[in-house]
C-alpha cells in the first residue's frame, strides 16, 4: 500500500516536472543552453543510477562504465547515421548491445573480487575504446558526426523508465538478493542465493541503461570520439555514485544533478573542475566514507522527520 502510494507520487511528480520544463522550452523561456544542460543532467542521472545498481546495490566495484556508454553511443549512432533507422530503435539497439557486452564481460570478470574486478572492468573499457579507435567505419580517432536528435522528451522518458525499473528491481526479491551479496557474499551463497547469477544480472541491467544513456549522449553532442569515453568518463560516473552514497538511489540522483551543474559552470576551467572533483572525492572518503546519503533514500529521511515531528507534538 505504502509502496504503491510512493510509486504514484513519483509518477505524478515526474509528469509535473516534465510538463513544466516542456512548456518552458516550447515558449522559449529556457534557451537552448539550459535545455541542453537539462538533457545532460538526465543522461548523467541515468549513468549514475545504472552504476549505482552495480556498485551500490550489488557491491561489485566496476570502474569501466564508460565502456558501455561508448558501446551504446557508437551503436546507436551507426543505426541512425549509417542505416538511417529511427532514433527510438537506435536507443534500444544501443542498450541491447551494451547489455550483451555486459553479459560477455560480466560472466568471466565477476568471479573476481574488489580490486581485481575494478582493474578488469577498467581494462575492458579501455579495450572497447581502443577497438573503436581502430575501426575506420566509425571514423577512428577523428570521431563520428551524429545528428542532434535527443530532445527533452526522449531524455526524460528514458530517465523515468530507468529509475522506475531500477528502484523496483532493488525492492524486489532479486534486489534483496543483490543487497545480500553486497553485505556478505559468502553468507549469501550459503543462504542459497545464486551469487554469480545475480551479480551478472545486475551488471547486465546496469550496462543496458548505460547503453541507452550512450545513445542519448551521442545524439546530443553532434560528434562522438573515442577519447570522450576514456578513464576520466568512468571516473565522472563513479564520483556521482560515491558522493551520493553507496547504496542510495536518491543520493546518486542528487549528486548527479549537483555535479553536472557544477561542471557545466566550470566548463571553461577543466583543470579546476578536476582538482575540485578529486579533492571532494578524497575528503568524502576520509571524513564521510558512506557518502552524502549513506544507504538511506530521500523518502526515508522525509518519513523520519515526519515521525519525529509527530512524536514531538
Amino acid at each position: 500500500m505504502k509502496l504503491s502510494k510512493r510509486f504514484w507520487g513519483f509518477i505524478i511528480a515526474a509528469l509535473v516536472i516534465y510538463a513544466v520544463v516542456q512548456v518552458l522550452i516550447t515558449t522559449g523561456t529556457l534557451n537552448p543552453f539550459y535545455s541542453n544542460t537539462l538533457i545532460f543532467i538526465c543522461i548523467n542521472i541515468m549513468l549514475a543510477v545504472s552504476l549505482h545498481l552495480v556498485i551500490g546495490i550489488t557491491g561489485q566495484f566496476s570502474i569501466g562504465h564508460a565502456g558501455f556508454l561508448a558501446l551504446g553511443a557508437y551503436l546507436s549512432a551507426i543505426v541512425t547515421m549509417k542505416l538511417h533507422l529511427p532514433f527510438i530503435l537506435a536507443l534500444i539497439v544501443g542498450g541491447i548491445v551494451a547489455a550483451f557486452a555486459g553479459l560477455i564481460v560480466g560472466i568471466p570478470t565477476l568471479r573476481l573480487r574488489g580490486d581485481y574486478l575494478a582493474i578488469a572492468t577498467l581494462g575492458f573499457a579501455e579495450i572497447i575504446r581502443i577497438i573503436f579507435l581502430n575501426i575506420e567505419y566509425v571514423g577512428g580517432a577523428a570521431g563520428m558526426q551524429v545528428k542532434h536528435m535527443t530532445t527533452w522528451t526522449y531524455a526524460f522518458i528514458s530517465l523515468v523508465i530507468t529509475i522506475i525499473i531500477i528502484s523496483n528491481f532493488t525492492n524486489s526479491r532479486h534486489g534483496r538478493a543483490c543487497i545480500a551479496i553486497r553485505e556478505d557474499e559468502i553468507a549469501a551463497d550459503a543462504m542459497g542465493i545464486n551469487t554469480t547469477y545475480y551479480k551478472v544480472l545486475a551488471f547486465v541491467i546496469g550496462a543496458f541503461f548505460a547503453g541507452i544513456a550512450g545513445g542519448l549522449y551521442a545524439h546530443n553532442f553532434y560528434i562522438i570520439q573515442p577519447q570522450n569515453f576514456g578513464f576520466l568518463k568512468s571516473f565522472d560516473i563513479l564520483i556521482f555514485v560515491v558522493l551520493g552514497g553507496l547504496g542510495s538511489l536518491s543520493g546518486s540522483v542528487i549528486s548527479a544533478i549537483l555535479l553536472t551543474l557544477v561542471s557545466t559552470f566550470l566548463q571553461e576551467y577543466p583543470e579546476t573542475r578536476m582538482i575540485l572533483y578529486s579533492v571532494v572525492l578524497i575528503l568524502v572518503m576520509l571524513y564521510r566514507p558512506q557518502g552524502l546519503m549513506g544507504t538511506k533514500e530521500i523518502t526515508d529521511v522525509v518519513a523520519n522527520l515526519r515521525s519525529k515531528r509527530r512524536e514531538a507534538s
Partner: protein
Amino acid sequence: MEWLQQIINGISLGSIYALIALGYTMVYGIIKLINFAHGEVFMIGAFTGFVAIVHFELSFVPALIIAMFTCSVVGVLIERIAYKRLRESTRIAALITAIGMSLFIQYLFIYFRGAEPEAYPQDVLPERTLDIFGVKVSMQALLILFISIVLMILLQFIVQKTKIGRAMRAVSYDKDAARLMGINVDNTISATFAIGSALAGAAGVIFGIYYTKIDPLMGLIPGLKAFVAAVLGGIGIIPGAMVGGFILGIVETLVSAAGFSLFRDAAAFIILILILLFRPAGIFGKNTKEKV
C-alpha cells in the same frame, strides 16, 4: 635476426614496466592497496629528471638520483596525507581515494604548469648501436637494462638483507604480530612507499630518455600497465613484478612488430583478463582459500 632485436627492445621497455610494477607490488603487499597515484609519481620523476638535466645541466646519474629522492618524498607525503587514515576503512574507500589522489596530482600539475609536452634532450646517454653477431642493439637500450637490473638487485638486497627489509616483510605478513614484536609499522609502511616511489622516479627518467617525450598525463597508461605486470607476476611478490614487467614489455613489442601497433595498448589488458581468469594469483603466486 629481426625478432631477436625486437625481443631486446621489448626487454628494455619491460624493464621500465618492471621498475614501476615493483612499487605497486610492494605497496600492495604491505597495505593491500592499489596505489593508483603511483603512475603520477612516475610522471613527477620524469619531470624532475628533465628539470635536472635541462635547467641544471646535470648528467644522467645525478639527475636519476635527484628524481628518485624527490619521488620518495612525494610518495611518503601521499601516504601520510591520504592513505594513512584509511588503513582501517573499507577497500573500496581506499581504492577511490587512490584514484582521487592520482587525478589530483595530474590536474594540479597541469594547473600550475600547463598540459603541453616536453622533449627530453637526446644526448643524455651515448647514442650508438652495437653490432653483436649481426644483431643491432642500441647502447641506450642496453644501458637502460643495466641500470634497471642494478636497481632491482639493490632492492632485493634491501628487502632480504637489511633490518628495514626484514621489517617490511614482517609487516606484510602480519601487521599486528609485527607491531607486537616492536616494529614501528607506520615508519615501515612509509619506507615502503619511499622505496617504491624512488623506483618509479627512476623509471620516469629512463622512460623520458627512451621515448624523449613526456607530458603531465603520461603516468596513467604506463601506471596501469605496470599494475598489469604486477598482477601477472603475482601481486605482492617482488621477483614476480620483475618477471611480469619483462614479459609484458616483450609481448607489447612483439604485438607492434607484428603490425598491430594500434592494438598495443589493448594487449596489456587482454593479458590481464586472461591471467585473472586462469591464474588469478599470478605466475609466482600461491592460491589461497578464502576463509569465512
